[in-house]
């Protein structure tokens, strides 16, 4: 599914959080959204998911403007997985994943066999089958995050938006999840803090700074220039590891300056 946003602007309490963001995501593409804290990543995802009404601009799925969509129709196009999974619920894990089938069920009907099969499949995909009857309150942070992602996948939408989906996951699950998302035919937008993961699994990266889209392109382009240094205040170097995966080495600007500073002090001492 194709997703495009045109001059998307969002304001709250007189503050402009998003400034005319325009981007176009191709069908099946995995787009990484990167940027420092408060740069507008979550807000952008929420506007794209139709959860916030933009102050200006439009969001289109396959060319259709979502402004006139009902909540239910929108849920057939896009699934959104929130960042904060800390909710005290008494539902079982399978019930939580079943919430993803809500847009396809009539209010009077329970789940049918197809719903059950999809839920079982997504639980299996997220490695949660053994926890399906556990109550939500007993899960770890990572298990909750995986259950929420399974719920998003169970929605079977053409587009999946995930806000920092790996922040509670252990390393193996991070790699498995991102590998699965990157290779899926679904259009995926994903906000990430880890630039190495972003470089390895995303087709393109969108770099946000103070609510503005300052770069949009392949990881090699976005991470290679001086932009990362200007936006994050760190020095990033894109390298390749021994199996050919990209790896981003990071240094704070002071770290890079420190050796020369030490040298100059020594020189000063000597002199």
């Amino acid at each position: 599914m194709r997703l495009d946003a045109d001059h998307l602007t969002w304001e709250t309490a007189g503050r402009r959080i998003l400034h005319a963001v325009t981007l176009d995501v191709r069908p099946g593409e995995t787009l990484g959204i990167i940027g420092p804290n408060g740069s507008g990543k979550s807000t952008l995802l929420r506007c794209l998911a139709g959860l916030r009404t933009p102050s200006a601009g439009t969001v289109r799925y396959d060319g259709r403007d979502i402004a006139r969509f009902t909540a239910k129709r929108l849920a057939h196009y896009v699934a959104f997985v929130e960042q904060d999974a800390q909710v005290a619920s008494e539902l079982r894990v399978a019930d939580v994943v079943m919430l993803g089938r809500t847009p396809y069920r009539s209010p009077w009907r329970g789940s049918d066999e197809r719903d059950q099969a999809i839920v079982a499949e997504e639980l299996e995909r997220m490695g949660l089958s053994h926890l399906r009857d556990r109550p939500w309150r007993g899960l770890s942070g990572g298990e909750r995050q995986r259950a929420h992602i399974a719920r998003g996948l169970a929605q079977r939408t053409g587009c999946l938006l995930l806000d920092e989906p790996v922040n509670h996951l252990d390393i193996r699950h991070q790699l498995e999840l991102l590998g699965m998302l990157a290779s899926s035919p679904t259009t995926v937008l994903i906000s990430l803090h880890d630039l190495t993961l972003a470089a390895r699994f995303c087709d393109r990266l969108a770099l946000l700074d103070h609510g503005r889209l300052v770069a949009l392109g392949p990881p090699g382009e976005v991470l290679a220039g001086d932009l990362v240094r200007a936006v994050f205040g760190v020095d990033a170097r894109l390298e390749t590891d021994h199996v050919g995966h990209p790896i981003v080495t990071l240094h704070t600007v002071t770290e890079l300056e420190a050796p020369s500073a030490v040298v100059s002090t020594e020189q000063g001492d000597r002199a």
Partner: protein
Amino acid sequence: MISSRQADVRTGRASVLPAAAAVALLASVATSLVIGTGGIGYGDLVSVIGVRLGLPVEPLAPLTDSLIWQLRIPRVLLAATVGAALAVCGAVLQALTRNALADPYLLGVSSGASTGAVLVVVTGIGSTVGVTAGALAGALSAFGLLLLLLRGSGLDSLRVVLTGVVVGQLFTALTSLLLMASGDADTTRSVTYWLLGSLASARWDGVILCAIATASALLVARYYASSLDALGFGADTAASVGVDVRRTRLVLLVVTSTLTAVAVSAVGAIGFVGLIVPHGVRFLAGPLHRTLLPYSAVAGAVFLVWADALARVLLAPQEVPVGVFTALAGVPLFLLILRRRGEL
């Protein structure tokens, strides 16, 4: 292994629960009908109802017959419908506010309904419909004020119960002021007794109004059952699975206000039913609203029928307002929930 056994227990319960619920409700109503003054037996009940149905049964003495038909039966049925109404309101409000402590009494909605009803009573327009309309206006005002005070932090804010208690106190004070201003000692005495929550004045018209309101509200709430499940994960997650959050909240707030108003105008403000019952039902039937709502209705009916039976016989011939018993049961549970949330 453990999980499949849990699933077996669940499906086992699912097949037994409907029958168990029906039996519990019928047995409670039947038992409560013969408890109390008048020495009524099951045979008397059969004959009173048989006569109404035109069956060839021996009619009772007119006095006993009217005691049973005009007082006891409406009273027990009203206890059942009001109990169901308050439990459904509690279950819905707990989901909407994402707060295990929410109930129409603790959120101040019952107090608002009382104020509205008392206003109608003291001004003397008091028909059943007038009192209910007044209670509805009061309940909606209380809800409006609650939402106004929670503006910015949202309906599912942690402050919702605290704010609700403040709203309740305000309306309780207004009710007292209205009563004092009316200056009629008889009105004051009867209204004060009613305010504590009592089923003593149950009549058939109240039963019918309350039963219709409860059944309709249960149907509407049941329509939104999966939306309520999703709202447990917050407005954004609910919206992303296709729930129209604004409409769901608006419809269900109006429905619970209306139902609370109908219940309060029939029997006064009976507290804690909406708090206690859904918690017990979640334990037995699970947290999904598709089952939680109907079973809460049944369990609420059973609970209030027994509380009222106790109210009639404990200090007989003196009658205790039933709200006293529901509060005695509800306060420890309130403390237990607070403690489990680590706020005490």
